[in-house]
């Protein structure tokens, strides 16, 4: 006696309703909550960006870009210059040791030392930036007598950027196929030639992405600079020590709490510059890493 599929189902499965209904409802509720969580985060992003962009563009005048700060008004030329000097200085200081330790971890770190270094560098990423700032204050501003200065500020930023550059360089270098190294060694190239002449150029897009992300972090930092770079209403005269320097994130923090409209406008304009810069770098980095359009991934395929 043959049974159709429907008859088998009817005889073996529990009656519809009850459990099946409960499972389906749980499914809907689960997906609903997940969607809600996502929408919540998405709308927070929109909210923050909308506030910064709308108020920032409203506050943007040509004067902001061409004048230095006067009291609580004027422009932000000094702060823009200072942010560029400090961030670029910090990154330039962080690249040699960062890249070198990335090369060591990826190329030569087979022994027992490499995991320890990797661990310490990873933990360094997590050290709060204010701790780095206070450390720099104690050692350089006070200890070495540099006062608030470009040197102390850049070195503080370099300490923050270094672990990022190290780890992203290591990741990028690991993507270089092993056969390339074997070929180079077989042709008689030494360690330095293989790493710097072959692997680093091949991994350059990845390394540069890491450097750019570190630059974005440096531009957005405030806490490590407050007690190392200080603040100045004037343009930088080129002294590395004993001369404070202004920067954009300070203007955001210090000016929004002042009771003057001009101060608020400067704070929003500064926030706009910093956010635009960080956003631009993040988008560039994402395009580089994207599965579908990224030049990094395409190159590897």
């Amino acid at each position: 006696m043959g049974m159709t599929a429907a008859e088998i189902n009817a005889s073996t499965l529990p009656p519809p309703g009850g459990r099946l209904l409960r499972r389906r409802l749980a499914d809907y509720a689960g997906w609903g909550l997940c969607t809600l969580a996502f929408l919540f985060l998405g709308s927070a992003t929109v909210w923050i960006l909308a506030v910064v962009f709308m108020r920032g563009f409203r506050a943007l005048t040509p004067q902001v870009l061409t004048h230095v700060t006067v009291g609580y008004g004027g422009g932000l030329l000094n702060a823009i210059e200072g942010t560029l000097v400090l961030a670029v200085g910090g990154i330039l200081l962080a690249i040699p040791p960062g890249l070198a330790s990335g090369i060591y971890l990826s190329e030569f770190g087979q022994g027992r030392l490499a995991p320890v270094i990797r661990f310490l560098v990873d933990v360094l990423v997590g050290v709060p930036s204010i701790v780095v700032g206070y450390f720099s204050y104690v050692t350089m501003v006070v200890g070495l007598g540099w006062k608030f200065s470009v040197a102390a500020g850049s070195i503080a930023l370099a300490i923050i950027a270094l672990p990022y550059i190290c780890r992203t360089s290591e990741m990028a270098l690991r993507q270089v196929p092993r056969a390339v190294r074997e070929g180079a060694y077989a042709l008689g190239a030494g360690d330095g030639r293989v790493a710097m002449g072959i692997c680093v150029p091949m991994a350059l897009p990845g390394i540069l992405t890491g450097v750019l992300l570190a630059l974005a972090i440096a531009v957005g930092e405030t806490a490590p600079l407050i007690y190392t770079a200080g603040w100045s209403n004037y343009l930088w005269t080129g002294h590395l020590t004993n001369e404070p320097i202004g920067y954009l994130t300070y203007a955001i923090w210090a000016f929004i709490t002042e009771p003057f409209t001009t101060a608020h406008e400067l704070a929003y304009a500064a926030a706009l510059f910093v956010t635009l810069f960080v956003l631009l770098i993040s988008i560039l980095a994402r395009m580089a890493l994207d599965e579908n359009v990224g030049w990094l991934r395409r190159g590897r395929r």
Partner: protein
Amino acid sequence: MNFRRLTAFLAITAAGILVVIVAFLGIYAWPALRLNGSAFLFQNSWNLGNLYADPITLHGQQIMPGAHYGILFLIVGTLLSTAIALVIAVPVGVGSAMFLAEAVPHVLRSWVSFFVELLAAIPSVVYGLWGYAVVIPFLGHHVYPFLAKWFGFVPFFGGPTGSGYGLLTCGFVLFLMIVPLITATLRDALVSQPVFLREGAVALGASRFETLWTVLIPATRRVLIGSSILATGRALGETMAVLMVSGNALNYLPANIYTPISTMASFIVSQLDSALEDPTGMAVRSLAEVALVLCLISVIVNGLARVLLYYEVRQSQRVV
């Protein structure tokens, strides 16, 4: 020195920075450590003393008369604001990671995720600006009175709601800053789970959501724990945003979730100016002790997270 040795030397230098930071803070804070003893961690008494009097000598250290340093309120403020952030961030992070990993078409996934992960790229001080100018008035005028009125029976939800500066505002801003860490890490882990886990669950009759919830999420729990601890570390050390929305309380513990607080990180920024007024320098050294405590806590928290995540990577390599 050959190339290999040179890179090894620079790598050791880079890793050594962490040791140097802890050592220098420790040496600088040593007189304060001796003076304050264990009371530093257990008393609510940050008091610079009479700055116009002559210094006195106590336990062999010169301090201003009446000076006393105890940071219990900072430790409590730091831990509570981080705990609130984490309590919101873990469920929201898990939910959005599930949504991004399973409900978004593959082509769109990386850009939709990017939109949420942007929250991690926005600088701390911009969060502070947004919190100060927009969130505080909104929460203080509309949300907190409502919460206190209708949920006042829940412990710590009732009572005076203040102006919007305080513990819950801190927790909320910190939550937004740390949640992308959890979402991004967990989403990557969900996407890269081996296919046979899915196949097995589907073969047993599980629906797509049941597969996700009962098989894939448990399989990635170590990643979830690791990334949550990393997020904790980030929240503990967050400075600027907290400084601008916390209300910078001094020497008292929060009575409810609306009370102003201070955290260790924000306190270092808000107090250095006045600490510099102390001619004996003990106040600045005590701030160094705050930095040292904060640094050690974050080293422990981050170390724990790295060990967990490292172990997870080892395991997944063994499976594949």
